């Protein structure tokens, strides 16, 4: 009797034990509840829209399209002066940038982070089989991803490569990846060497042309739209000196009537129709200070008072002759878009007032005024007459600033006008380089280091990236 009972128990025990064994595999499959996995992120339309939104969220992150963008442009060019103690910024200002510089590596780090996210969308969305997720909706999302991928490659090409003008675009730019780093993808597939500037530009052109086709016209300028893609492409063609294409695209954006050349400078710190593409940056989303650069570029004590308008810029603004309607008696861009205050040493200087010291304001990326500039410059240099004359376009911009009309316009006039209009908006450095000019004025410190084509007019490939990627061996920019 006993023995039989024992046997039954043993059998039952073994069955029970096997039950646990059997069930354990399922028990070990636990999914996170505060994030989505790579698979689940592309299984619902809302999640996909979240990933798309995340592109812009990433872009306003330190420091993809935030403060760094204008800081390093201003620091290196004749646009701004730096008096602070932060070595990474002081080094850029003094042309002593090291390959380990933390500010200049942000474009690389954040750039590829956004590109990876965009690549996920571009790769996964076409195959997403979701009820009520229409082809049109998919197109819109892929279009946005392509726009964001293009803008990040464009930003990186501005930072890490010599301009098109130096070697007709045959110089090295950045590695190109168009596939996501997803489950199972070997890291080696991403250990890529640098492509040429022309190759990167080709990708940008393809992406933006796709985006122009895929995206609809939209008045929501906080996300990518057809107009934003056209505008960005116009900028690229300007950089490549393809005047007809640049003027045509700029003109198309202007005549689309979706954007409005503002009457005054109240559009800063707001999401207005002056913008073609602007990154909303609200406290609700959690503010990004952009490595605190907005704080650096604001006067003390609200900000650090480290970074302000250079004497060259201020005198350019002050030299403008006011027109009769101008009651302020000076260039209006010395009124609203600036704030006079103390720098870190207590000296009174002119600071930007386009983004407040908290960084809690929208970040202007492309605005309609730039299209008038592009049309004017392309028409002038290509000897074209698309849309309007260069003189009219430039006088339109001068008139808003309360300056008298010019009677004739030259390239120098356009560049000076761009300097004053886009002060601390991140254009000046490239405006000089793409015109084969040095970055500093004669008499400025580091003038000789800043001449066109000089090594340190562009930035180093981040040192750590050379270590982590054998394909970049020997591809560091000269001088670093």
């Amino acid at each position, binding site marked *: 009797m006993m023995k039989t009972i*024992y046997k039954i*128990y043993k059998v039952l*025990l073994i*069955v*029970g*034990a096997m*039950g*646990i*064994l*059997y069930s*354990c*595999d399922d*028990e*070990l499959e*636990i999914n*996170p*509840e*505060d*994030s989505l*996995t*790579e698979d689940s*992120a592309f299984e619902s339309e*809302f*999640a996909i*829209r*979240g*990933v*798309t*939104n*995340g*592109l*812009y*969220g*990433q872009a306003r*992150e330190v420091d993809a399209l935030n403060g760094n963008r204008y800081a390093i442009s201003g620091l290196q060019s004749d646009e701004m002066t730096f008096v602070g103690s932060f070595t990474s910024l002081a080094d850029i200002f003094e042309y002593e940038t090291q390959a380990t510089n933390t500010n200049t590596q942000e474009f*690389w*780090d954040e750039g*590829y*982070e*956004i590109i*990876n*996210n965009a690549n996920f969308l571009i790769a996964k969305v076409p195959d997403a089989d979701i009820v009520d997720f229409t082809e049109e909706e998919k197109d819109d999302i892929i279009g946005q991803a392509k726009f964001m991928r293009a803008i990040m490659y464009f930003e990186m090409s501005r930072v890490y490569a010599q301009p098109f003008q130096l070697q007709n675009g045959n110089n090295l730019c950045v*590695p190109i990846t168009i596939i996501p*780093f997803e*489950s199972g*993808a070997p*890291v080696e597939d*991403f*250990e890529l060497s640098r492509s040429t500037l022309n190759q990167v530009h080709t990708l940008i052109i393809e992406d933006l042309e796709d985006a122009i086709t895929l995206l609809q016209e939209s008045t929501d300028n906080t996300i990518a739209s057809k107009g934003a893609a056209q505008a960005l492409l116009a900028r690229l063609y300007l950089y490549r000196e393809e005047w007809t294409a640049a003027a045509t695209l700029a003109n198309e954006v202007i005549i689309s009537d979706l954007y409005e050349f503002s009457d005054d400078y109240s559009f800063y710190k707001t999401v207005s129709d002056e913008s073609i593409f602007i990154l*909303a940056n*609200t406290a*609700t*989303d*959690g503010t990004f200070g952009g490595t605190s650069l907005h704080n650096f570029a604001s006067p003390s004590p609200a900000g650090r008072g480290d970074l302000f308008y250079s004497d060259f810029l201020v005198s350019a603004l002050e030299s403008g002759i006011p027109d009769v309607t101008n009651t302020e008696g000076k260039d209006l861009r010395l009124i609203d878009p600036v704030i006079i205050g103390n720098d870190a040493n207590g000296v009174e200087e002119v600071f930007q007032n386009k983004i407040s010291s908290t960084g809690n304001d929208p970040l202007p990326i492309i605005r309609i005024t730039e299209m008038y500039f592009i049309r004017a410059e392309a028409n002038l240099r290509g000897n074209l007459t698309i849309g309007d004359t260069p003189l009219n376009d430039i006088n339109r911009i001068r008139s808003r600033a309360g300056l008298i009309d010019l009677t004739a316009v030259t390239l120098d006039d356009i560049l000076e006008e761009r300097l004053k209009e886009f002060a601390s908006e991140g254009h000046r450095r490239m405006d000089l380089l793409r015109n084969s000019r040095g970055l500093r004025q004669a008499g400025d410190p580091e003038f000789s280091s800043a001449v066109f084509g000089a090594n340190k007019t562009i930035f180093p490939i981040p040192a*750590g*990236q050379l*270590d*982590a*990627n054998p394909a*970049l061996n020997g591809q560091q920019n000269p001088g670093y």
Partner: protein
Amino acid sequence: MKIQYHKLLLFLFFIYNITFSQEMNISGTVTDDKGLPLPGVNVLIKNSNKGTQTNFDGNYSIAASNEDVLSFSFIGFITKDVKVGDKTIINVQFTASAAELDEVVIIGFGTSTERKLIQNIGTVRTAAIENIPAVTAQELLQGQTSGVQFTQSSGVLGAANIIRVRGVASLNGGSQPLIVIDGVPLSDDVNTFNVGGNTGLNPISDLSPGDIASFSVLKDAAATAIWGSRGANGVVLIKTKMGSINTDTKINADVWTSFTNVTDLVDILDVNEYAKYRFERGLVGASGGINAVSDLPADGSDWLDLATRTGFSQNYNVSAQGGGKKTSFFIGTGYSSLEGGIVGNNLRRISGRVNLNHTANEWLDLGLNLSVTNTLNDRVNVENTTFAPLTSSYLIRPFIQSRDEEGNFINNDFIQNIEAIEALQENSAESTRIIGNMSATIKLTEEIDYKGSFGIDRSQNNNFLRIPELIDPSADGGITPGGNAQNFMANDNRIISDHTLSYNTTFNDIHTIGAVAGLSYQETTFNTINVASEDFLSDDLRNVSNGAVPTLTAQSREKRSLYGAFGRINYDYKGKYIIEGSFRRDGFSRFGVNKRFGNFWSLAGGWLVSEESFMEELENISLLKLRVSYGTSGNDRIGGSFPSQGLFGSAVPLLTATYNYNGSGGIAPIQPVNPDLTYEESATLDVGLELGLFNNRFNLNLNYFKKNTTDLLLPVPITEITGFATINKNAGELENRGVEIGLNTKNVVTDNFTWSTNFNISFVDTEVISLPGANDSDEGKFIEAAGARQRAIEGESTNNFYLVRYVGVNSQTGDAEYLDKDGNTTTSPNFDTDRVIVGDALPDFYGGITNTFTYKNFDLSFLMSFTYGNDIFLDGLRFVGAPDRVGTFNQSSDVLNYWQQPGDNAKYPRLGSDTESLYRQASSFQLRDGTFLRMRNLTFGYTLPNSVFKNNKIFKKLRIYATGNNLFVIKGGSNMDGFDPEVTDNINPLIQGETFFTAPQARQFLLGTRITF
């Protein structure tokens, strides 16, 4: 399936009630080796919990069947097993043994004896700890056993302690040992606010020290392999107290009260010295100088005095233990009310415990261990924050006042008014923790037992922080109010289900086989709610919902589950040759899908040389054992719950920001997938020698070990073209080698006087073997934690201090001098590129020594612990020992010792020297030798003689005692005045021995009484 299995277990409990063999009454007399009757001998029916004890005449009587084996045991004699057979009278004469050899040792999923143990386990028994009045359970481990380095991270109540078993076995993973209480592996998720520093709270502060019967520290692979993926950092098994069957109920009441003082405070400038010093600086135009002493207020607050106090603490423990025929029990309750030496730091703990063991019948034993603890910790900020009482009281300038003329608090300096904070602010952590384990042991056959157990570890933690208006004033100067509140609740809920079959048999009297096989399932759910708000109309409105602006609403949950199958088999031939093998296979949800399961194993062999016939003539050698083991175990603490998965999330890594955009949800890749991510694995070779001489009055335990850890979790840099800077991989390798020596001696044993000594010392050498993918430097590849002053470097230790070398003040020039990388003297070092290896946070050796004396009814014992050869870094000196910062921060009195004329050997440079500002930078100036010898515990007790109680029906025993904890520290380093050498402000294994201003260990004077009823 699992649930059904539990049903099956219930079914097993209820259906089986058949009595199956003939019982009869057995009686007899037990005598010692000289033939004298022995009272109190345990008489047990083997493989059951049935048993009795002999009476004063050495007689016993017990019901047993003829199949049973009676086991007679008594401390000091060799246990005797006698098969009942057809005998009804069984008399036993003991032979004397070396007593300790037959004491039971708790091992993973079973027990062994000291004699036959071939695993390396350090056991700390009741006798060693019962006279140490401790606040936390971990303190009882200090200095008690070799191979265990114990660092009390600070003198703040409830602060976590650092326990390292055999060195550092992990760099980025957790490196604390697994702690198991009565079969329940404790959860150690961080469930509290960070209040500065990164030490967290003590994971076992919820355990009442008075409940602990023993610790077993599992060190080698033979001991830890059966804990599989959690064993690599060592395992601490804690057994709580239990009564014995057929014993009278014994009630113990232990009451102590104590006074606590803060030791080792830095001597800082008072308000007069401060003004005078700044005036002297002003005379030579040095920074921070003033034109006249009267430029500064003459009155100030004595901040250090406001921040420290004499704490008064009380502790009550009452317990009852005993047992009847079928049931034994321990019931304990404790109440502690403790005040720390830092103002505002209190801890109150109320605990209760029930341990039960019930023998239902011949085949079923039921067990229960259950404890409930409520801990309320009134916390203070620590380390590098202006809210930390100790830090702020050092740094705030002495002329700053705490109160205005009317006696109201004011807060007008950038360093917070810490008196006001402690008076007005609430910063509390309340936890309620239930740890329990129910078990049923079923005897399937004479040899085979089944044990099923179900355990829980459930803690509910409620952290609350309320910062008043005074400390967090209105941002806009008064239109909207200030103040803020935060409530963080964490529920950590773990269930464990274990099932084991064990088999024990002896055949032909010479072959003994023991085996255990089991299954274990563990599931942990960690749920947190974190809410905060700001702008309170009044400080009287306490709760978060009263803040006008909500600033945080977060809720989160994580689940993890671990499944293991394990076994161990042990064979011993004639008690001389022992071999043992163990195995475990673990599957853990945390590991990547490709490496979700891990296999761990060990093999061990032992030779009891002293049992050999050729040793019989060497009577003085009571024990000579050689043992060797090799095997593997793992470390599963590789971060979070989902470290291997590719994730899209909204929270930006490392920032308090989201990828949300323009009011809509946004997500982005936040973690790359690594399906191969898995546990870190340690393979350990252990060779040991145990020697007992003179009837074990001299006991030596000597071990050599080599522990090689591979698959170290490293954030390996990958090309950012992937969108990620690093990926967590199992890549690195390190090794710990060492020698451990334990020596127990009974120096004097006479009727009236005894003296025994317990000494242990461990030499551990830690070397990083490889760090693939890590950044390179002149010294080799290295990794370092953010903000750390130390690096783990290939070919070197894991904790090399990496700093610029400070030389001193040049007696001719009065400037501070440093060495550059090449060793040339310089007054303008580069604090990045001139750094070299200057020290090591890991000691050369450490250990403890306990001496116990008894004379008649007096007892005296003292425990000292020591550490030798490690360095510590005093980060706070960069503020309180940086003369040119005197305008902003108060300074240590040392700054008065500045250079004045050629020939001076001063501590600090000439006033106004350019090199004064260099003291703000980290260099070897702030590095100290951390060697110390601490008188950790000294207890003097008096037990009333038995004659007093002879006719007393109530009291059985009364002991009064006085204890001094941390009476003194002998410091090995110079310039250590004001600093406690035993510090660390971080539990991160890559940041050891660094302190900002860690609260020094408290000195405690304690008076207590223990009464037994």
